[in-house]
């Protein structure tokens, strides 16, 4: 009785065929095949294999193979013996991963280190371009960007709450909490890296800031200085260090990370406060003010953060 393959079975069969073709082409190359043609054919199979095989570690092994191929291509088909044997092993490894799944992925990391060292000795490309970039890095980058956007949006919402009327203020505060929580979850990192809410005392307002939980930030005994506030802003939007010279009060700093741009500068004039709400002057948009510290005001203009919030990770 012949049973139709389900989608995963079909994908696995196709992947195994690609592995077999990689092996055939590699043998052909060793027997004097056209380097350019064979390498191009192998690269096509590698791309497809890395993209379509869900098996853990396949993308990493494909990357190792691609880097060895790049070395072959750059050296007109010449290859040190150890790289030849490592390539043979890598192709077999890929086949086993496709065939046996995650159980076969033990040893992949160690094997890749050997490939790295062999390539380094041979003067070939050691950057794990595909390995880091194909599926894993793409996911990490999207995740990181999404976290950053969420963090930036949370900051913006928090800023809005500072200047809002009473009714709206409470709702914005709740929104900020939701966004900060979401940013924390989206980080997909261990709990120690999650965002914590820390309350800081500034000259006028107590301020809640979302900072990564593994940062050791103690609330200062004195109201925050402007530079300290900028550091906190960095923590808030996930930027680990901000280089700013606060001695120049008109300093403007462009912060760019993950596609989000934020302008920070020290205001030349203090912003008056009425009660616990700030009253920015007419030339400042309320949402640009983040923290008030003494006579210095640190401004943030989340240029694209909010617009990016509507974009979900791919």
């Amino acid at each position: 009785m012949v049973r139709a393959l389900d989608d995963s079975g079909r994908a696995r069969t196709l992947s195994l065929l690609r592995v077999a073709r990689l092996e055939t082409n590699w043998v052909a190359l060793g027997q004097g095949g056209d380097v350019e043609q064979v390498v191009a054919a192998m690269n096509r199979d590698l791309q497809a294999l890395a993209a379509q095989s869900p098996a853990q570690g396949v993308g990493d092994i494909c990357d190792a193979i691609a880097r060895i191929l790049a070395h072959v291509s750059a050296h007109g088909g010449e290859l040190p013996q150890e790289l030849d044997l490592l390539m043979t092993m890598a192709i077999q490894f890929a086949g086993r991963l496709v065939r046996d799944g995650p159980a076969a992925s033990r040893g992949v990391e160690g094997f890749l280190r050997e490939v790295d060292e062999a390539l380094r000795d041979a003067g070939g490309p050691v950057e794990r371009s595909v390995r880091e970039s194909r599926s894993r890095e793409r996911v990490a980058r999207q995740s990181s960007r999404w976290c950053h956007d969420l963090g930036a949006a949370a900051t913006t919402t928090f800023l809005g709450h500072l200047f809002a009327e009473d009714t709206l203020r409470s709702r914005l505060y709740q929104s900020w909490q939701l966004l900060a929580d979401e940013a924390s979850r989206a980080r997909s990192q261990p709990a120690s890296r999650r965002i914590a809410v820390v309350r800081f005392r500034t000259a006028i307002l107590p301020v809640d800031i979302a900072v990564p939980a593994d940062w050791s930030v103690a609330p200062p005994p004195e109201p925050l200085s402007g530079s300290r506030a900028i550091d906190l802003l960095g923590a808030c939007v996930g930027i680990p260090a901000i280089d700013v010279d606060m001695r120049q009060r008109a300093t403007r700093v462009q912060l760019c990370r993950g596609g989000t741009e934020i302008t920070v500068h020290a205001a030349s004039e203090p912003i008056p406060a009425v009660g616990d709400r700030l009253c920015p002057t007419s030339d400042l948009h309320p949402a640009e003010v983040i923290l008030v510290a003494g006579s210095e005001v640190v401004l943030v203009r989340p240029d694209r953060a909010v617009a990016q919030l509507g974009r979900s990770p791919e």
Partner: protein
Amino acid sequence: MIPLDLPRVSVVGFGVEASHAGDVIQLKLTGRAHVTTGAPLHRVLVRLHTEAMRLGVRQVTVDFRGVELMNSACFKSFLTWLDTAQQASPATRYRVHFISDAHKQWQRRTLAALGYFAADLAVEVEEV
């Protein structure tokens, strides 16, 4: 002692010496393993696993020091052998002990990589 029964390899420029003592089988390879060596070496390694199981040995030692060159087809036979050995039940698995020539870098690196390839086996590489 039960005798070890492995096929002979009669290829000019390549040799395999096999021995069995106690619970260890040892293979000593010499020469250049290339195209003409592929099939006979493959037969040896397929049989090696069968013999290791039959004799119930705890270790198989492969001495690579005398190998000057090995092509990928021959090397693939080692991968197949390790793959097969890995699939044995944990109770019957044997250790694999490679001996390499410290002056031959290709041996050191590829044998170390074999250890990662056969991560479910106890593989050790000794440089001499």
